């Protein structure tokens, strides 16, 4: 669990405060949902779930929210940072069935990585992205290019469907065998409630403050459940959440 070097290949501005950091690095098999710790010496170490990892090239899709992500946004090509991982439990992906990938914000990072894997395996999927308005659209084109169906939901209706992506779940859930979700806590709670109600097989990825990343400090607990996001998650099957008393 030592650090490996990661070289900045590119740092692409997507919109406002969101970037793709493209890294060249050699770590073990990292699957969709896995996270890594990005360490910038003398700044901080933060968890990120890559939006793609392939052939030694990793894409981190991140949003500037504070010091470390701010520092990340100023990284130049050729600069070096340090990562350790993969950590946590990834999404479990099968080679069959129909998948709904549903998320919002930069939370969609591990979903689009899942889309890549499903596409490779020739599995049918629908990708649903919820954002405030059309400026925030992220991976719709990428999902389409992967051969999936892709739908954008905007809060203000400036593009795609007006409303929240959970609306899609409500009306179309019968069509899917598996649901993969990832988003802000409120969104995750809504997805959990709906999927429990409909009895769906659903995996949700959560975020909490990850400090140690290896299950010892307790910082990343899913309150009330005793589950640790860094060790037991970040991806949880809703049946596990239920078993441990998750009650949104």
């Amino acid at each position, binding site marked *: *669990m*030592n*650090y*490996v*070097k990661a070289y900045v290949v590119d740092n692409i501005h997507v919109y406002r405060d969101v970037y793709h950091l493209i890294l060249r690095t050699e770590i073990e098999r990292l699957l969709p949902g896995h996270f890594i*710790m990005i*360490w910038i*010496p*003398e700044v*901080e*170490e*933060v968890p990120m779930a890559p939006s793609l990892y392939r052939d030694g090239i990793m894409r981190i899709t991140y949003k500037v929210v504070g010091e470390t992500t701010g520092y990340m946004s100023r990284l130049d090509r050729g600069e*070096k940072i*340090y990562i350790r991982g993969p950590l946590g439990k990834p999404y479990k992906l099968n080679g069959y069935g129909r998948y709904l990938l549903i998320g919002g914000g930069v939370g969609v990072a591990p979903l689009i990585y899942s889309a890549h894997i499903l596409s490779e395996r020739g599995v049918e999927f629908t990708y649903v992205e919820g954002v405030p308005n059309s400026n925030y659209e992220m991976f719709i084109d990428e999902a389409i290019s992967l051969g999936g169906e892709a739908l954008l939901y905007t809060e203000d209706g400036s593009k795609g469907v007006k409303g929240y992506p959970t609306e899609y779940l409500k009306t179309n859930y019968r069509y899917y065998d598996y649901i993969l979700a990832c988003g802000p806590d409120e969104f995750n709670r809504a997805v959990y409630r709906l999927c429990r109600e409909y009895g769906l097989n659903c995996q949700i990825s959560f975020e909490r403050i*990850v*400090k*140690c*990343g*290896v*299950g*010892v*400090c*307790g*910082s990343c*607990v899913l*309150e*009330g*459940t*005793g*589950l*640790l996001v860094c*060790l*037991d998650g970040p991806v949880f099957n809703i049946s596990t959440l239920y078993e*441990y*008393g998750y009650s949104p």
Partner: protein
Amino acid sequence: MSGVSLEIELSGIKLRNPFILASGFIDDDPSLLSRAWKAGFGALTTKSLTPKPREGYKPPIIAFTKAGYLNAVGLSNPGVDSLPRLLSKLPRESKVIVSIAGSTVDDFRYGAEKSNLDNVDIIELNLSCPHVKSMGMDIIHDISYSLDIIDAVVSTSDKPVYIKLGLTDTYLSLVSKALDKGVSGFTIMNTIKALAIDTASLKPILSNVYGGLSGPAIHPIAVRMVYEVYREYQVPIIGVGGVMDWEDVVEFIAAGASAVGVGSYLFLKPVESVKDLINDLMKFLEDNGYGNVVDLRGVAHKK
């Protein structure tokens, strides 16, 4: 399952087995302690609680070395006032050791007062954290200051009081004096101040630079301290440090420990893995003809 009994007693407190969740591990939320209890521990130690909540250091707070782990969590904790909440999900029969930290005699007295709860069984004084200024090794290096703290706590609380020792030049003399003050037992040991430099970045890994070394590295040192304290005083001892498998457990108990703390074992493992330690100890006892874990205590001293 078998006729072997794992039950032990620590200062009059009956534990279903000798495995104790070490201080500092996964207990920020009541649900975590309750999960650990369900996992099978004989008792649970809280994080070291201070009068006020503490944020702790920013990540990296842990580092992996060849032979153990470094941590500089920085005594992050929700504050001792949160104790009733922390313990709220535990069943009646659970056993709880409250670890107290502080930087003044009053801090410790305050902690002891707040620990005067029905479901608290033992108070452990953390005098030996190696990575927080004025809250750890600074205390235990100063025996008379340590004794003042012990005095204050013992006179405040009716609970058995344990001292968490670190490796110091004078710990045996502290043990003797602490016993005179009415201390009931010792938790041996805390981490040792250490440093890891990353060879990729050539920088200290921990944001705090220094951290406490735990895991296999410190085990033989902990066994020595347990052995020495047992040899001199035959008091209740919780052996902590590098318990990774049944062999380490057996070593601690044979050296004189009544119970065994489990800490670094939990790196990258769910708390339920304590089951393996419990089962393997049971098997060792069975295979070696012990009916009772208590009979193993201190056997390494026998001629």
